């Protein structure tokens, strides 16, 4: 499977650090245009803070709408980083190498995007520290740890801190390479400080390796708990169609589904923009696509359980919510779109090797998955609220306002914006991982065929 190209260390350094040392035109254009979108969204947030949440489409009793949907979506995307990095690192999957850094940093940035959402959604965002800060300040009162909304920030900050550490630990050797190449320029002091005096002694490598393995192992429970806790925001409540026991694993595996798809999208775009043809090959997205088939099917099983056991109760309120979801416009159309884009189109396509190994096909199918998964979160959260109880005084629908849409689009621009900025200062593919991979290539002679092989550490 691994028909690796042989690359010299010098070539790896040159190609992967290209964007760090030069600034291509497309980079400026992209940063500026994405920055503009983000700026518009920030302005929309300012307008909303100034006017009040009346400018959203929220209404009685639909208290949570686009913002919370988007929050769940971005937390979901963030699950790919560890999924790829930690699990594949622990299982020593060789194909992880070119995608770990990009996936990890996408985790960090999408968590940041996710964190903005509950913040702007709160009625009085400027007093949010009351909510999340575990200290009694002057009020003489601590946050209520019984509330899932306290579990949320605790889980997400833990995840953010540990994944930032994870990124940083893996970044140190590369920082030292940049430091050594930028002596005498304005960059030098920054990289000199950040690289913590790395000079690549065996002792340092050993420590770095241990830290990587430990962080991988410790981050896995965090990774499962984060989206479980997000799911319990809904699961522990009494809203019909939310009060479901399967939500925790269903959300986690859905997050992996959308997150790994996002990694595929990122890989394809990175490869094209940064000319990484020597590093990201068909084999890599093929492996990701095969992983996705399994993940998506597991996700589908849990989705099916959610559906069947909702019908199982034959309770009136569950039926009302599912009726809205499936048969009332526009919900039914959204549901159909979600179902087709997140499973029915991509997964059967991925069964074909030719699709799995085509960058174009994988780009579009992985984007489709995330369109579907965004809608999935929307369809989990909002219909339950629209038809919350048998009291019909406030029956209606929910329609997002232009402000909400702008802010959501802003987060969609924010993450690639931050990724582009990151890529200007740090290589998106770890140099040392690639170099290590090159050292482990071997082959085995079978008859008259040379089969590519790998050195295993044990």
């Amino acid at each position, binding site marked *: 499977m691994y028909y690796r190209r042989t690359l010299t260390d010098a070539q790896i350094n040159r190609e992967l650090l290209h964007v760090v040392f030069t600034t291509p035109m497309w980079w400026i254009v992209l940063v500026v245009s994405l920055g503009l979108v983000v700026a518009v969204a920030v302005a929309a947030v300012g307008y909303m803070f100034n006017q009040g949440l009346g400018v959203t489409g929220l209404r009685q009793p639909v208290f949570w709408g686009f913002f919370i949907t988007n929050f769940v979506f971005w937390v979901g995307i963030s699950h790919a980083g560890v999924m790829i990095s930690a699990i594949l690192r622990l299982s020593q999957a060789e194909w992880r190498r070119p995608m770990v850094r990009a996936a990890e940093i996408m985790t960090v940035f999408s968590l940041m995007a996710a964190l903005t959402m509950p913040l702007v959604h709160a009625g009085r965002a400027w007093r949010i520290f009351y909510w999340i800060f575990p200290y009694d300040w002057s009020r003489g009162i601590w946050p209520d740890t019984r509330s899932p909304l306290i579990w949320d920030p605790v889980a997400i900050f833990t995840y953010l801190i540990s994944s930032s550490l994870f990124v940083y630990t893996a970044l140190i050797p590369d920082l030292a390479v940049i430091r050594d190449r930028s002596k005498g320029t304005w960059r030098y002091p920054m990289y000199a400080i950040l690289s913590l005096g790395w000079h690549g002694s065996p002792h340092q490598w050993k420590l770095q390796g241990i830290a990587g393995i430990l962080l991988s192992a410790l981050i896995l429970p965090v990774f499962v708990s984060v989206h479980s806790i997000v799911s319990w925001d809904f699961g522990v409540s009494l809203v019909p169609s939310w009060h479901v026991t399967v939500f925790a694993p269903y959300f986690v595996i859905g997050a992996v589904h959308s997150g790994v798809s996002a990694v595929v999208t990122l890989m394809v775009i990175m490869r094209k923009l940064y000319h990484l043809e020597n590093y990201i090959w068909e084999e890599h997205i093929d492996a990701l696509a095969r992983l996705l088939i399994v993940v998506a099917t597991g996700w589908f099983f849990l989705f099916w359980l959610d559906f069947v056991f909702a019908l199982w109760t034959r309770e009136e309120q569950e039926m009302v919510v599912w009726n809205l979801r499936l048969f009332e416009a526009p919900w039914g159309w959204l549901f159909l779109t979600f179902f087709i884009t997140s499973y029915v189109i991509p997964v059967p396509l991925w069964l074909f090797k030719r699709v799995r190994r085509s960058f174009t096909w994988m780009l579009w199918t992985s984007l489709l998955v995330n369109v579907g998964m965004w809608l999935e979160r929307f369809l989990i959260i909002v219909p339950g609220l629209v038809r919350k109880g048998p*009291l019909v005084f406030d029956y209606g629908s929910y329609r997002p306002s232009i402000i909400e849409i702008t802010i959501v689009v802003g987060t969609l621009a924010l993450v690639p914006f931050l990724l582009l900025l990151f890529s200007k200062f740090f290589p998106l593919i770890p140099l040392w991982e690639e170099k290590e991979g090159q050292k482990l290539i071997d082959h085995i002679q079978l008859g008259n065929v040379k089969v590519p092989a790998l050195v295993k550490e044990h």
Partner: protein
Amino acid sequence: MATQAKPSTHGAGDRDTPKWEMVVDLDRCTGCQACVIACQAENNIPINEESAFHEARVIQWIRIERYWEGEFPDVKARFLPLLCQQCDNAPCESVCPVYATYHNNEGLNVQVYNRCVGTRYCGNNCPYHARLFNYWEPTWPEDLRNQLNPDVTVRTRGVMEKCTFCIQRIRRATRGGEAVADGDLQPACAQACPTSALVFGNANDAGARVSKLKNDKRRFRVMEELGTDPSVTYLKQVDTDG
């Protein structure tokens, strides 16, 4: 702090502490909405203009749920005044991250406006849709400004609010510590009800009207199966003649 007051749950508790409850006699209710207006005036609730109804952002601490019984042409309009049920096992309380809503020792589900940051989770978890959110800064026409009740906080935008059983009246009546005679203390809605369909009182006082009525054979509580243990009891004769 807030938790120390937990306890009057499930009725019992200290007999000397009042346990405020309400009984709503649906057989008396005509759906006239006097309670809604009285509540509006008493509790500094902004005027609900037509647009508020279109946007479904009406703020009414008590509202009349109308529903139909029977099939056309033999159809009857029925009314159910719905307010915060002051549940003893309230789903809204445990989900609030900042203790903006908690249970006090008089069986009231209390909303603390200046703690509220507006996550609106309590509103999601309230099966009675009794919790309301201030989407806009509340405003009143200039000539109504002097009519605001000085005992009641004007809520800013971004916080949740709901029926308090007119806690300002309870506080005024019990401030000195002396006992309140049954019927002397009434929330605005009960006071305004022309048919006396709403009865308010201390359920720990065995002689109070509310204590007697809440054990009436017509009694039921809304969504009892959820186990929220509401403090509002409804009375309704089940039609047998169709």
